[in-house]
């Protein structure tokens, strides 16, 4: 875990946050939270986020969350952080009679459920709840495991029940204090003297770790998370140099320190199965570099696990740019692993947005170090995630094939694209919500919808919802575009949301989508379609979207309109099928 210093975070508070996007947060705790708030704001500077934080008065959790007219709800936060201190919990537990102790966790969880359901009926924001460090209370020794009325049993049960709650409710994130504490150790995360003298429940060295974890959750919920891991080969994925040592001498499996690399590969494989795109970027002869993936019996990763394989003598930065061009995802969602500090510095300098962990010198330390960084935080999963490797491999094929066609049209029609268009339904809801939360570039208004909001849109009589699946002869793209139209007047329908996955750019998909929007507007009896472009730091690519599709500019800046009656359909190379 990279060490962050509380003082450094505090110094950030004096710096200039202007121009950073604002995120509104409420912090409620039953122990003092001032230092936590200072650290979080300070950490925001490192992440280029300006946290506006409403810190509730001490010990006001119930009072604030149960009252619909409270300051918290009036503040309209993006996130609510709730912190019950483990020390407080322990005191409460100790005060219980013996007969009440075995139901302590259930009572506590029931109360939290009440609180959170009140939150959900007053706001749609995400709750971040800090779970509890397990406590060595020394009352029953190991026998605490044998009885359900020990504090150990009850605190573990609370942590487990919190997970069950998080599974059930889509908008609850757990900041896993228990995990962080066991990683770092009680002696690091807690300082008895600071607790006794100043009622500080986390040590000053632990606070930065906690706020980093909270910030990971916030960023991932806001759509900023890593999607791809790019791997160097020699001494990163196996020990030794394949070009010099040959396939039989590289260290993987039982040879030398091969175990370090085998375990790293198993971890990467788990990431791949979760939906992280795995790519290779190595200075090597391609044929030689592929050999271990194809022939070495102890390799865990195989060619079919790698979405884009770049082994040549270009610079690493150029190869990473080539990978980016194929995948069409932001550099800020990529992680690059390389054992060579020179290559790391070079890539960091050339591509500042990419995450480049400073791997320890000893390969035995790679894995634990990488795991400690929490590089792959995520706030929702969909079925699409797991198919991603295959999808990007298909993309790589298309990129190669495209070069062999004389013109765009010929290429597009050769793809034999088919799109299924349907209104939102319960099967598409998670993916639709995920796309609204993740799409940053091809997104006209960047409105984020939660799953429950998507579900209610599909019931709204004044809304027309459209989702688009796409496939071609190389494979499935899955659900890649989302449109929400909202009735403005009897004559006018407005485009509330129009977004598309950047993977399907330059396929004529946007023209196809417009054809279907116009058809839907016609069916609803509307005469005009109005579109708006709301600029963000990332959606520059659609600044001229409406203009290029033939909309006329309205008086108000970034507002566009299209007359339904005068519309002539765009020619597209995508065949429509209705669900």
């Amino acid at each position: 875990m990279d060490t962050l210093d509380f003082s450094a975070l505090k110094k950030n508070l004096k710096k200039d946050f202007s121009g950073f996007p604002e995120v509104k947060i409420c912090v409620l705790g039953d122990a003092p939270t001032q230092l936590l708030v200072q650290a979080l704001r300070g950490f925001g500077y490192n992440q280029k986020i300006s946290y506006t934080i409403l810190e509730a008065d001490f010990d006001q959790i119930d009072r604030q969350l149960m009252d619909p007219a409270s300051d918290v709800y009036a503040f309209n936060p993006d996130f609510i952080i709730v912190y019950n201190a483990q020390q407080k919990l322990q005191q409460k537990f100790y005060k219980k009679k013996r007969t009440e102790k075995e139901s302590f966790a259930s009572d506590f969880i029931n109360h939290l459920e009440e609180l959170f359901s009140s939150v959900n009926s007053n706001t749609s924001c995400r709750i971040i709840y800090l779970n509890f460090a397990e406590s060595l209370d020394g009352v029953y020794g190991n026998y605490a495991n044998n009885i359900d009325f020990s504090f150990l049993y009850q605190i573990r049960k609370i942590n487990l029940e919190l997970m069950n709650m998080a599974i059930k409710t889509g908008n609850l994130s757990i900041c896993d204090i228990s995990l962080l504490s066991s990683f770092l150790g009680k002696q690091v995360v807690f300082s008895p003297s600071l607790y006794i003298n100043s009622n500080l429940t986390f040590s000053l060295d632990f606070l930065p770790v906690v706020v980093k974890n909270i910030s990971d959750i916030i960023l991932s919920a806001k759509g900023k998370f890593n999607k791809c891991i790019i791997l160097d080969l020699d001494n990163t994925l196996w020990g030794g140099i394949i070009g010099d040592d040959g396939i039989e001498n590289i260290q993987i499996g039982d040879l030398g320190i091969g175990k370090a690399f085998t375990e790293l590969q198993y971890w990467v494989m788990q990431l791949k199965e979760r939906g992280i795109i795995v790519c290779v970027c190595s200075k090597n002869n391609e044929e030689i570099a592929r050999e271990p993936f194809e022939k070495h019996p102890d390799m865990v990763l195989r060619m079919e696990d790698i979405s884009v394989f770049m082994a040549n003598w270009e610079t690493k930065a150029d190869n990473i740019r080539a990978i980016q061009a194929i995948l069409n995802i932001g550099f800020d969602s990529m992680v690059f692993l390389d054992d060579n500090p020179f290559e790391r510095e070079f890539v960091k300098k050339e591509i500042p947005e990419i995450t480049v962990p400073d791997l320890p010198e000893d390969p035995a330390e790679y894995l634990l170090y990488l795991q400690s960084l929490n590089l792959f935080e995520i706030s929702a999963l969909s079925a699409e995630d797991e198919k991603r490797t295959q999808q990007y491999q298909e993309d790589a094929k298309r990129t190669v094939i495209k070069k062999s066609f004389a013109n765009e049209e010929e290429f597009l029609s050769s793809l034999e694209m088919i799109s299924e268009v349907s209104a939102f339904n319960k099967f598409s809801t998670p993916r639709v919500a995920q796309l609204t939360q993740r799409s940053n570039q091809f997104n006209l208004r960047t409105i984020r919808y939660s799953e429950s909001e998507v579900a209610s849109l599909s019931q709204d009589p004044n809304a027309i919802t459209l989702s688009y699946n796409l496939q071609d002869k190389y494979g499935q793209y899955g659900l890649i575009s989302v449109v929400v139209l909202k009735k403005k007047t009897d004559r006018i329908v407005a485009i509330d949301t129009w977004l598309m996955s950047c993977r399907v750019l330059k396929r004529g998909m946007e023209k196809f989508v417009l054809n279907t929007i116009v058809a839907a507007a016609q069916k609803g009896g509307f005469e005009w379609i109005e579109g708006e472009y709301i600029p963000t730091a990332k959606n520059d690519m659609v600044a001229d979207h409406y203009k290029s599709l033939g909309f006329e500019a309205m008086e108000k800046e970034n507002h566009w309109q299209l007359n339904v009656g005068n519309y002539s359909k765009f020619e597209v190379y995508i065949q429509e099928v209705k669900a």
Partner: protein
Amino acid sequence: MEKNEVLALVNEVFIDALDNEDIKLTEATTANDVEEWDSLSHIQLIVAVEKKFKIRFTSGEIHGFKNVGDMCDAIIAKLG
């Protein structure tokens, strides 16, 4: 270590932790004399001083500090 050396090092810690180059401590300095020295930054100062000298104050010592001089005395006693 001489008391004035300890004081000079403590002064460095205060300047860094409170992010104020102008802090000039004397043995008689109290929290009232330094603008940024409040109950929150006090925690930070104690931890920073402990790290600098690689010592741990007892709770009794922390409570007994009336001024910077007391803190320096406690540091000297611990360094032996």
